[in-house]
C-alpha cells in the first residue's frame, strides 16, 4: 500500500509544479491567487499521504487542518486587499 501512497504523492508534486508555473508567470493577479490556493490544497493532501506512509496519520491530520484554515484566511485577506487597491 505504501507504493500507492508514494506514487500518488509524486503525482501530486508534479501537479504542484504546474500550479507553481501558473502562480509565477500567470497573467493577472487572479490567476496567481488561484494557483497559490491550489498549491495549498495539494500540500494538504500530500501531508496526509505522508502521514499514511509513516503510520502516524493522527499527527499529520492536525498539521493539515491548520494548513487548510490558514490557507483559507490568507486567500480571503489577499482578495480583500486587491479589491481595496483596485487591482481587479
Amino acid at each position, binding site marked *: 500500500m505504501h507504493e500507492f501512497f508514494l506514487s500518488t504523492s509524486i503525482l501530486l508534486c508534479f501537479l504542484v509544479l504546474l500550479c507553481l508555473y501558473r502562480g509565477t508567470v500567470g497573467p493577472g*493577479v487572479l490567476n496567481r491567487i488561484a494557483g497559490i490556493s491550489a498549491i495549498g490544497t495539494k500540500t494538504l493532501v500530500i501531508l496526509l499521504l505522508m502521514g499514511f506512509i509513516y503510520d502516524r496519520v*493522527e*499527527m499529520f491530520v*492536525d*498539521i493539515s*487542518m*491548520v494548513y487548510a*484554515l*490558514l490557507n*483559507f*484566511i490568507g486567500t*480571503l*485577506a489577499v482578495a*480583500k*486587499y486587491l*479589491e*481595496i*487597491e483596485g*487591482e481587479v
Partner: protein
Amino acid sequence: MWPEYTEQSDNFGGKNKMIRVTDDVIIKTIARVLTPFIQVYALYVIMHGHHSPGGGFQGGVILAASLILLLITHGWAETKKKFSETKTAVFCAVGVLIYTGIGVLCIFMGGNFLDYGKLGGLLMVIPPEARSLGILGVEIGVGITVMAVMFSIFFDTSTGGNSPEDETTSSLR
C-alpha cells in the same frame, strides 16, 4: 504590482478599508459559521501540545487567525465587542504573567526556573503529573500572549496606527 507610496495609500485614504465590513453575504456567513470551530480547534491544539504537534504558539496563532477573519469580514465595530484594544493590551500582559508566574513559583517551591516537578507538593499530585500540568499552564500563558500580539500586529498594520472611527456603514469603498 505594488501601489505607489502616497499619503493616501498609507492609511487607506483615512478610511481603514482593510478592516471595514464587507458586503458579500457568502463571506460573512462563512466567517460567522467558521469562527467558533477555528477557536475550538485552537483550544484543542493548545491542550494537546505535549503529545501531538502544536502547543502554545501554534494554538495562539490559530486563535488570532479566527479573530483576524472576524476583523476583515465583519469590521472593527463588530469585532470590538468581542476583543477590544483594551483587552488586547491586558491579554498581552496576562499571558506573560502566567508564564513567568509558574516559573517563579517553581523557584519558591525549591527548584529551578520552570522546574515543574517541584509543583507536586502544591497541586497534591505526584511529580510526573505535576510536570504535565505545569507545561499545560505555561502553554496556556504562551497561547494567550501570542493571540493578543498577533491580533495587535494585524490591527496596527492595517490601520496604520490610527485608531479607526466606528464604521457603521456597510459599504466597502
